[in-house]
């Protein structure tokens, strides 16, 4: 297959001899597309690197150049994804090299090069697909990162008092989120040396069996660690769910409101709150 990808040599020779012209044309074609979002200079630097690799693909016996080419494309595609380019804009940037080369072939009038062009074209199409794949993977990653950040934002563990931590949960609880909150709560208990925690679910509209089980397990795990966990703000619907599902909350302390739970935890930690007359 060596040499096949970049043509039988005519196109490779052309890429070498007409470098300036082809590269100029390629840059100009892509620049139309990305105007304002990427400077001409940045673009030129990127394309020069790709061009250099493209020109060497012909002599690529062991596939190193092809590997480098794919890596360079993947890199370009990743940065485009981060900059908010669409995947077609990115791919078209690669496909544009075909037009630039075709124009050079036409100018040269070399019929042999024309024949090779079909293979060159197919090769570039493959490269375009690489950018598509990388682009999609990168966007997935961006979405995953954001989901994780959102999760962290929505699951705060706060200090209510010396030795008392609070977790005010708001919104729909799914199993994954509950698990993450619970783990970070237990970790915080250790880090801060707190012996009491209040999990407040006033802002939670509903729970399913799995979430209720996670809450329960957290309280049990907190107990094994020598700490005391109170659940507050159980809405009537949730109370019904818990009873309906037959989940045994046993001797777990629950309070109607966060204030009641805090008062309970304060009392347990030996703090009494009195009004200054």
């Amino acid at each position, binding site marked *: 297959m060596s040499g096949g990808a970049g043509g039988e040599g005519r196109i490779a020779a052309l890429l070498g001899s007409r470098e300036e012209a082809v590269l100029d044309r390629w840059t100009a074609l892509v620049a139309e597309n990305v105007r304002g979002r990427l400077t001409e200079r940045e673009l030129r630097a990127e394309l020069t690197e790709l061009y250099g690799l493209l020109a060497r693909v012909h002599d690529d016996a062991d596939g190193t150049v092809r590997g480098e080419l794919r890596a360079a494309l993947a890199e370009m595609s990743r940065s485009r994804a981060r900059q908010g380019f669409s995947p077609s804009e990115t791919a078209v940037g690669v496909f544009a090299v075909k037009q630039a080369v075709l124009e050079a072939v036409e100018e040269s009038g070399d019929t042999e090069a024309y024949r090779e062009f079909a293979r060159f074209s197919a090769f570039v199409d493959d490269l375009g697909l690489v950018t598509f794949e990388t682009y999609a*993977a*990168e966007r*997935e*990653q961006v979405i*995953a990162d954001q989901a994780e950040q959102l999760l962290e934002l929505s699951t705060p563990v706060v200090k209510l008092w010396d030795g008392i931590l609070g977790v005010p949960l708001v919104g729909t609880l799914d199993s*994954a989120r509950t698990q993450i909150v619970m*783990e970070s709560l237990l970790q915080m208990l250790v880090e801060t040396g707190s012996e009491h925690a209040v999990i407040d679910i006033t802002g939670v509209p509903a729970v399913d069996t799995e979430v209720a089980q996670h809450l329960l397990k957290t309280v049990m795990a907190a107990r094994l660690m020598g700490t005391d966990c109170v659940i507050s703000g159980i809405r009537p619907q949730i109370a019904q769910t818990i009873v309906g599902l037959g989940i045994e909350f046993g001797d777990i302390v629950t309070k109607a409101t966060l204030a009641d739970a805090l008062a309970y935890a304060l009392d347990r930690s030996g703090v009494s709150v009195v009004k200054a007359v």
Partner: protein
Amino acid sequence: MSREPAGGELPIASHDDVVRVRQLARSLAAAAGMSLVDQTKIVTAASELARNTLVYGGGGTARVERVERPSPRAGARAGVRIVFSDDGPGIPDVDQALAEGWTSGGGLGLGLPGARRLVDEFDLDTEPGRGTTVTVTKWCR
């Protein structure tokens, strides 16, 4: 980058071997990028099952390996798989052995059902007189 620990097959012939199985499971789970909680779960399951192999199976082996499966997200999802095998008496009544609270050896019967709860995949292959093979897998979340 640190060197990836290699999986492998360990004999289970003594209580020290049980500890070695735990340690190998731990290093592979950590290298696979598992959360601390998940690491602890697979290591604890490994401990329960290795003890079963030793005490009820009369000894055997544990093969600990890193596994991967395709993920809808970029790249593959890593995990750890452990296969416990023995040529012991086998388990005559599997349903009973997997039922909560059942034990054949003076314990509280948490061995098999407990280990099953700690992993994502659990497979029990046994026949009276032909030994027992338990395969467990835990995936990174």
